[in-house]
């Protein structure tokens, strides 16, 4: 089912200013601009990659982080294969808000089994010297909230960025492989390509 080059939709969520757009740009274009405009509305970029022999096209969606824009971004959650929960290690509030982001995502993305849905947690800006969130605290949160993989990244100096996105792909593929044992192989994956899922005329 997930053979050949399949499209994975990955969405970056987190407070305003934690570096969602910078992570996306670092990963896709390998560039960093500290003065990049904050995102208004919704944007996405595609990136082709190979993970463990699987060719995938990752479609990375980047949204405006401010609470006010919730009604704009949430419609884009649907159909996501993975959610990257992002905070900034120099901003404890953004770390505290992770739970809210996760909740918002599960609610609006219409996730059927939140327990097995792949989340990856990114603690960004590790290049900054004045940390407000310790690695231990972040790891503990990830362990206590569904055993999510945790990556400390820096979009600025490219630390762990590719690793985090590749982990996202691995998690999605793992979930799908598990799923294949349960679902007959000829079913249409409604989740992936909603438009081709015509069940009737």
């Amino acid at each position: 089912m997930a053979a050949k080059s399949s499209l994975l939709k990955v969405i970056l969520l987190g407070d305003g200013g934690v570096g969602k757009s910078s992570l996306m740009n670092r990963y896709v274009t390998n560039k960093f601009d500290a003065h990049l405009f904050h995102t208004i509305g919704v944007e996405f970029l595609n990136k082709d990659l190979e993970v463990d022999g699987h060719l995938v096209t990752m479609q990375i969606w980047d949204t405006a982080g401010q609470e006010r824009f919730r009604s704009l971004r949430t419609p884009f959650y649907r159909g996501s294969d993975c959610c990257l929960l992002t905070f900034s290690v120099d901003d404890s509030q953004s770390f505290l808000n992770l739970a809210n982001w996760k909740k918002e995502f599960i609610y609006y993305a219409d996730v059927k089994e939140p327990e097995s849905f792949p989340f990856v947690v990114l603690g960004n800006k590790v290049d900054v010297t004045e940390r407000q969130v310790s690695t231990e605290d972040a790891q503990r949160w990830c362990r206590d909230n569904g055993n999510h993989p945790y990556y400390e990244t820096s979009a600025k100096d490219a630390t762990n960025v590719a690793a985090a996105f590749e982990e996202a792909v691995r998690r999605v593929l793992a979930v799908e492989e598990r799923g294949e044992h349960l679902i007959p192989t000829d079913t249409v994956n409604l989740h992936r390509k909603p438009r081709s899922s015509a069940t009737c005329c």
Partner: protein
Amino acid sequence: MARKALVRLIRNRRTCLDFSYDVNANFTIRLAQLFSCLNKSGEKNKKEVRGGIQCTVSADERNVCFDLLHPQVIFEQEGIFIHSSTESAEDQDSLTAGLLRILDKDGDILVEYKPMEDTVDPSNMLCAGKDSSSVMEWTQCTGDRGHRLVEHQLSYETEWDMLNTVSFKRKQSTSGEGWHCSLDRSKGAFSFNVGELKSIMVKTEGWSRLVFRLREDSGMPALHFHQGGSEAFLDALRRFVHLVQSPNDESCLIVSSQNKALSQSFENLLDDATFGLVQKFKNDPYTTTLGGFSKVTNYIFDAFRGPELLHQQRPAEEVADLLSEVIPGLEVNQQEEPGFEVITRIDLGPRPEVRRREPVSAEDWTEHMDIEGKVQNVSHLKELIFKGGLCHAVRKEAWKFLLGYFPWDSTRDERKSLQKRKTDEYFRMKLQWKSVSEEQERRNSRLRDYRSLIEKDVNRTDRTNKFYEGPDNPGLILLHDILMTYCMYDFDLGYVQGMSDLLSPILYVMENEVDTFWCFVSFMDQMHQNFEEQMQGMKTQLIQLGTLLQLLDLSFWNYLESQDSGYLYFCFRWLLIRFKRELSFQDVLRLWEVMWTGLPCQNFHLLVCCAILDSEKQKIVEENYGFNEILKHINELSMKLDIEEILLKAEAICWQIESCKVCICMSHFILFSIHLPPLLSGAGSRGQQSEQSTPDLPLPAHLLQFLWGNPKANSVHKNNEQNR
């Protein structure tokens, strides 16, 4: 010789109502005739509620007003068949055609099926019969047999695209069947609450058929979708119940217990009742009706705008006469119905050629000042600015007027004392946040959040612009302080992302903290709704933009709809910050000063959107862009747009719409007095007023008020038109 015109209203792609009128008759008489059809009982001030449309008739019988009520019909499709004795498809004789609907009854979502015999009961029609003394004729639907339905669909779909959506709803069934499961086996009618639904069997053999299974396990007849539409029905249903494919049987959709909130779809942004209506456009004739209204009613703007202009410029007779001429753009077919003209298509006509001028120079500006520093001939000056913008040297002064910080009729001395007052006021507010201690702030999460985000955002606003580049740029401190002070000015709104984009060009032009602040306050007065909690301004504008797009190019609009892009999400950034991120910095300054003139109509920025989309639509359609590609394509237009070209096109579109007399006339006859205040907002007291004070033309003037609602702007625009 009396010339008659036939107007055919089409509902659900079927002829619903034909009526003819004497094109030479006084409009008021025609309207009265029509209205006597509508309300045969003749009661005054009568209110009738028919399936979501409330018809109110005023005491003088001159105002017929249709109000849209709470959305009731979420989905509706006729021509759904039950094969009565058997489910076999070959058994043609036992077919029963019926109407399938999803209804919202006070929050209960119901699926209802009624055989046609019931649903076309004449007593349920809004108009109960023919009035031989009237020129209006009501022809009952003819398409209640499936095969004819198909014919109509093919023959009218294209030629009636401007008209085919005006309809009257039938009366809601009030037979006390309750809103739970009910099944009248003798007729095949049934209805049930979606909460009762357990599963749906979907079988496709040539066409689709659905069988509902309820929790109580009462068997339902199979519904046959001979003309398709089962997918649309299921899509509509999915908004209320969660349907998942059964792991054992792929033709079985099981209702999952998980509650499916409306907010999981695009309705999230567009979640109020009004917008909910518009969203249901595709599946719901009731709202299709709404869309149809808006297509044509857009043109009610000018002739019926305000009392003075009305009487001077377009008396009712004159407007009526317009139809008796052969109006360019109106396609009239006399063959189809001998003795009648059938209006088959509306053409907006060619787009006029417009020119732009040189920017207003410092000399031009000073020439418009009298000895006391009062601006002379403001409308002329505004027109010059609209046509050419401002030289940069003039901006610092002129923007204060354009934004409304300085009154146009103020003298130099008055402005000086105003500035002095405003300076004190500014620093008083600035002191307020400056004097909040760290400890206080620790207990004030909102202020803390505002400050944190402002600090982050000013660091990433226009940093490639020389004015804001480099570390420790003083411009950043000013942006920060002004935004913080604005939080004190309007703490409820506070800081919302996007505001720094709106502020930065103003500071760049003003180079003065206090003036920048007050100009920003004025700008925010215009933009406030965009940033409010419910984003009402954004919703309204997206609806209005949709209305315009339908009008300008219905096929492009249909394409967008077909790609789930009718919500125009891709225009969000354009509208939120007025193209700030789409254009080069200098072009933003030009566009904004042009927009602030209020010429040639209000909300000119919506026409700017139309102009940009007009240039992109060919590529979008030819490349067959889907939802994602459209979003990406539009996002990537940023910094590639030519402002002068866009302004030329936007202005031309404005005149093109303005000169479309046909639509004005059509709207008389088709729409009578459709009253849609919540949809096209701004339809408050002004609309009421114009209705009351213009008895000869009982059409509310406000339907396109978002373009031509402001009488001042309009009088200037008139001048402009003459000067062209």
